[in-house]
C-alpha cells in the first residue's frame, strides 16, 4: 500500500463574477471543477496545463491560501478543513511550504538573507538568535550556498542563487510537503538543471513530497513520479510519469507532448508530423458542454459535445475521454 501524505478529493473552487452597482453575482469562474489527486510520501506529483487550467488554484487550496467551494483535502488522513486554526498552525502549515516561480518578487529586497531564511523559524517556534543563525548557516550550506553569504541582500545574488535561497527558506521548518510553482521557468537554461538536481537531492535526503506546477513537459518528466494533466479546471489524464509519456491516452496530452518535443529535421529535410491544436482554451466562466476539450479536439465526435466523459481507469492510469 502506498504511503499517502496528501489527498485531494473532488476539489471545487468557483470564483463569483460580479457586475453592476450592487455587485450582483452574474456567474462563476470555474477554476477547479472536481479535481482529485494524491501525493505519496517522498514522491512528486506534477500538475501540468496551460494558463487558466486551474493548476495554481489547486496549489493555493493545498496551501490554504484559498478556501474551497467544496471538496476536501486530507493530510496524513486528516481532513484539514475539520482542523481548528490553532491545530492548523501547529500541525499543518509548518509542514507544507512553498517555493514560488519568480525569485525576484518572492523576497523582500530590504531584508538580509539571514532574516529571509529565518523568518519561518521565528514565526513558528521560539528560537534564540544564535540558534536561528546556526540553522540558517546549515540551510544555506544544504542548498549549495556559502554560509558567509547570509549577511547579503537578495539583489547581490543571481537568479539561480536566489532560487536556492527560496528553497532554503522552504526547508527551514523541515516540511513534509513543498509546493513548487514553476520552480525553474524563470531561470536560465544552464541554471535550471542545477536547481532541478538540488530539488531531487533534497527530496531523497529528507523524504520530501513535492507538488510541482509546471508547463514544460521535459522538466516534468525529469522531476516527477506522477503527472496530472489539467484542462479548464479538470484533470483530464492522470498517470505515473513513465506510463504517461509512453502511452498518452488523452488527445490533449498528445498535443501537449507534440508541442514540447524537440523535432529535429531528418536527413532529407523532411518534417515530422506535429499535432497543432486549433483555437484557444474556452473561458472557464462558461465551459463548453460535454467534454470540455471537444471544441479543439481533432478526434471529437458527436457524443463528445453532449455527454461529459467519465474518468476511466486502466490500472494506475486515469483518463477522461470517450475515445479511450
Amino acid at each position, binding site marked *: 500500500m502506498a504511503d499517502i501524505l496528501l489527498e485531494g478529493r473532488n476539489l471545487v473552487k468557483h470564483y463569483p463574477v460580479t457586475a453592476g452597482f450592487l455587485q450582483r453575482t452574474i456567474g462563476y469562474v470555474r477554476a477547479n471543477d472536481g479535481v482529485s489527486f494524491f501525493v505519496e510520501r517522498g514522491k512528486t506529483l506534477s500538475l501540468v496545463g*496551460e*494558463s487558466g487550467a486551474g493548476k495554481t488554484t489547486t496549489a493555493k487550496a493545498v496551501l490554504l491560501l484559498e478556501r474551497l467551494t467544496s471538496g476536501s483535502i486530507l493530510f496524513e488522513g486528516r481532513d484539514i478543513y475539520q482542523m481548528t486554526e490553532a491545530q492548523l498552525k501547529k500541525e499543518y502549515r509548518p509542514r507544507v511550504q512553498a517555493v514560488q516561480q519568480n525569485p525576484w518578487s518572492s523576497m523582500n529586497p530590504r531584508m538580509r538573507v539571514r532574516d529571509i531564511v529565518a523568518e519561518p523559524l521565528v514565526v513558528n517556534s521560539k528560537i534564540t538568535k544564535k540558534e536561528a543563525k546556526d540553522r540558517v548557516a546549515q540551510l544555506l550550506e544544504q542548498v549549495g550556498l556559502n554560509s558567509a553569504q547570509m549577511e547579503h541582500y537578495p539583489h547581490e545574488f*543571481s537568479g*539561480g542563487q536566489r532560487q536556492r535561497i527560496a528553497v532554503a527558506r522552504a526547508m527551514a521548518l523541515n516540511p513534509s510537503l513543498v509546493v513548487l510553482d514553476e520552480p525553474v521557468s524563470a531561470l*536560465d*537554461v*544552464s*541554471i*535550471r*538543471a*542545477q536547481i*532541478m*538536481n538540488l530539488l*531531487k537531492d533534497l527530496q531523497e535526503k529528507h523524504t520530501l513530497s513535492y507538488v510541482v506546477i509546471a*508547463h514544460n*513537459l*521535459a*522538466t516534468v*518528466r*525529469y522531476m516527477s513520479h506522477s503527472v496530472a494533466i489539467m484542462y479548464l479546471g479538470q484533470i483530464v489524464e492522470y498517470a505515473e510519469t*513513465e506510463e504517461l*509519456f509512453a502511452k498518452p491516452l488523452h488527445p490533449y496530452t498528445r*498535443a*501537449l*507532448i*507534440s*508541442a*514540447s*518535443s*524537440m*523535432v*529535429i*529535421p531528418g536527413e532529407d529535410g523532411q518534417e515530422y508530423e*506535429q499535432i*497543432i*491544436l*486549433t483555437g*484557444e*482554451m474556452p473561458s472557464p466562466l462558461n465551459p463548453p458542454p460535454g467534454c470540455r476539450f471537444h471544441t479543439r479536439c481533432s478526434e471529437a465526435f458527436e457524443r463528445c459535445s453532449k455527454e461529459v466523459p467519465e474518468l476511466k481507469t486502466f490500472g494506475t492510469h486515469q483518463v477522461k475521454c470517450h475515445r479511450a
Partner: protein
Amino acid sequence: MSETVLKVENLKTSFFTNQGEVKAIDGISFEVAEGETLGIVGESGSGKTVTGLSILRLLPEPAGRIIGGKVILEGQNLLELSKNAMRNVRGKLISMILQDPMQSLNPVFTIGNQIAESIRLHRGFSEDKIHEEVISALRLLRIPAPERRVHDYPFQLSGGMRQRAVGAIAMSCRPRLLIADEPTTALDATIASQYIALFKDIQKMTNCSILFITHDFGVVAKMCQRVAVMYAGKIVETASIRALFKNPKHPYTIALMNSVPRLDQRYDRLYSIDGQPPSLLNLPEGCRFYPRCESRMDVCKEQQPPEIKTGAGESVSCWKISK
C-alpha cells in the same frame, strides 16, 4: 544558394555605465539568406536582444553605443545611414516582434489603428487602401473575423491573438527581414505551436528572412534552418539545425544541450554546467567559457579562440577544434 539579405560583420556594442564599459556584444558576424530563418540562442546576458536592437539601431542612448562593425542590409550599411533614413528602414525593410504583446501594443488604440500606422507612414496609400491593407494583414496572420477584430482594443484579445496582432503590424509593410525576439515565450505551449506553424506559412508566402531570438531549443528545432549560439557577447558556434542536434562542436553548446532535458529521454541525473556566465564588466582574457569548460587547455586562458569554418555557413570558435 539564395541571396544574402542581412550581413553582420564584427559588430561590437557596449553600454557605458558608472561601473565601466559593459561589452554586450563583442565582435559578432553572421549572415541571413533570403527566406531563411537564423536562430540566435543564448542565456540572459549573452547579447541576443542587444544584437536585434543594434541591427535596428534602437539601443538606449547615450549609454548603449555601437562601437564597431557593419550591419549590411541588401548591400547598404545601416550604421552609416542618417537618423531619418534609418526611420525608413524600421517597420518597412526590417520589423520586430517582442516577447510581451501587452507591452508592445498601445492599450488606448484599436489594433486596426496600430497596424495602419506603419502602412500610412511607409506606403503612402489613401485611407481606403490602408484599411484594405490592414484587413489583409490581419488575414495573413489568420485572425478570425478581421472586419470586426480591426476595431478591437488589445485588452479584448487573448494572449495568442494579441501576439498575432503584433505580427500583423510587423508584416504590414512586407519587410525583407523580421527580427523576432522571444515571440513565443509568453504564450502557452499549444498556442506557441500554432504561432510557429503560422509564421512558417507566412515565410513561405512572403519569402521574408527571420532572425529568431530565443532560449528554447525546442522552438529553434521547429522554426530555424541555422542557429548561432551566443555566450557572453560572442557567437561560439554557428551550425545548421541538424548539425547542432546531431553533432554539436563547441563545449558550451554540448554542455547546454546536455543540461536541457529532452522529452523523449529518461534521466537518472541531469547534467548541469557549474558556475555562472562571467560578468560582462570584467571578462576573462582568453575564451569566455574557460572557467566553466570541461575540455579547457592552457591556451584557452590566455588567448581568444579563432573562428574556424566547419562548412557552408557553419563555424566554431574553440581552441580544441583548431588543434
